[in-house]
């Protein structure tokens, strides 16, 4: 096995172009498990932890550009106000030790349907900046997940950064597992209210072959908020609206029975999490008006 350790991003892209089979490693929280258990025996590892550029984040054009090697711990400590949904999701991931190493880009590269960052990225609206020696392109998050542990990247590409829109309204995240800490999601749900464009964003995790949105639920809720003037009045949401939103989120899922939970449980859990997330987010929206007044 070769251990490639580029010092710059240009060198990393050259190495990946020369060796498309090289497995990138940053936090190692997925790759090392594969190595330790003998499931993964790549010809080459491509260590990205020396590339300083990947550890930066910036704000530009109304979005955070989150470098591929920024840890979950730093998303929580440095970006809680700019990426509230993603920071909430990050708090549910693994343990402090895992959050010190694991990265959002690693979650994307692995593309597990149970990855905790995905529902937050889908709800907030995100783009994945991928690069190769051929050039750079931006893959919308809706097009990124192509199957179970599959994504839209080519073999010679690496993730440079994730672009996540700054929030214009409250974001919430809910995850259910067999316990609170150190757990893989049985199901997860992300919600973002976008009052600037009078829209709603959702993300479902662990309940379909890929992370996915619930478009019918988004359109229903945005329509209700619009037609009832609720964006402006910030009045209480009707119970029926909350319940219907939960039903439509659950209807968007296509889960399986597995060791962590049954499909029926996942669908039920999603309807409950969607109702709760909406209730919390709407309370935040109403409070933010009071604080502003």
């Amino acid at each position, binding site marked *: *096995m*070769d*251990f490639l*350790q580029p010092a710059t991003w240009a060198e990393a892209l050259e190495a990946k172009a020369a060796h498309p089979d090289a497995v990138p*490693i940053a*936090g*190692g*929280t997925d*790759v*090392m*498990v594969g*190595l*330790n*258990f003998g499931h993964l*025996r790549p010809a080459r*590892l491509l*260590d990205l*932890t020396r590339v300083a550029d990947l550890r930066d984040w910036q704000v530009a054009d109304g979005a955070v550009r989150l470098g591929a090697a920024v840890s979950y*711990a730093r998303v929580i400590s440095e970006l809680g106000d700019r990426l509230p949904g993603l920071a909430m999701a990050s708090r549910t991931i*693994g*343990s*402090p*030790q*895992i959050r*010190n*190493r694991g990265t959002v880009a690693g979650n994307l590269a692995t593309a597990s349907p149970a990855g905790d960052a995905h529902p937050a990225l889908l709800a907030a609206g995100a783009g994945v900046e991928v690069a190769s020696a051929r050039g750079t392109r931006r893959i919308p998050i809706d097009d990124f997940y192509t199957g179970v542990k599959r994504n839209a990247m080519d073999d010679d590409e690496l993730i440079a950064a994730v672009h996540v829109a700054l929030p214009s309204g409250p974001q919430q995240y809910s995850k259910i597992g067999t316990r*609170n*800490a*150190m757990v893989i999601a049985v199901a997860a749900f992300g919600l973002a209210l976008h009052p600037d464009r009078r829209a709603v964003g959702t993300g479902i995790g662990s309940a379909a072959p890929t992370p996915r949105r619930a478009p019918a639920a988004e359109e229903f809720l945005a329509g209700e908020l619009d037609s009832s003037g609720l964006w402006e009045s910030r009045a209480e949401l009707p119970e029926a609206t909350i319940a219907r939103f939960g039903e439509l989120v659950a209807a968007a899922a296509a889960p399986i029975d597995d060791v962590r939970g049954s499909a029926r449980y996942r669908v039920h859990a999603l309807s409950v999490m969607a109702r709760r997330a909406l209730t919390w987010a709407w309370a935040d929206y109403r409070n933010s008006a009071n604080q502003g007044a």
Partner: protein
Amino acid sequence: MRLTCTVNGTEQHVDDVWEGESLLYVLRERMGLPGSKNACEQGECGSCTVYLDGLPVCACLVAAGQAEGRQVGTVEGLADPESLHPVQQAFLDAGAVQCGFCTPGLLVATHDLITRQGRPSDAETREALAGNLCRCTGYEKILDAVRLAADRMAEPTAGGDR
């Protein structure tokens, strides 16, 4: 490949490191530092917790080559030659050690917690130690030990009951 890194303040060189092995394997099998324990090998148990450039991480999830040139701190580096570190002494005094397998990881995680937060609340302690599994103690004695260590470290001159 050859690996050079600083472990507990001393520069270490090891040869013939396999590119796919973990920092934990290097510490235990190549450097003679078996304090960090090897249990789950998947980041679930925290028994191999070490400092890497000042941050607690699972050594089993760090590729050996990623530690090149870095600062590693293990449980062996906590005590000084004369006496145990107050965190270690508190674990003994509080009865927080039973079989002892999880203890090294808990000591490093607790050391990090108290260094960062001084006197953590119980909720903060539970959150900070959520990645360290213990199958013996039921955790109550560990919480006692964290409180005891935090008290002693906050008032080092008042710790007369050792």
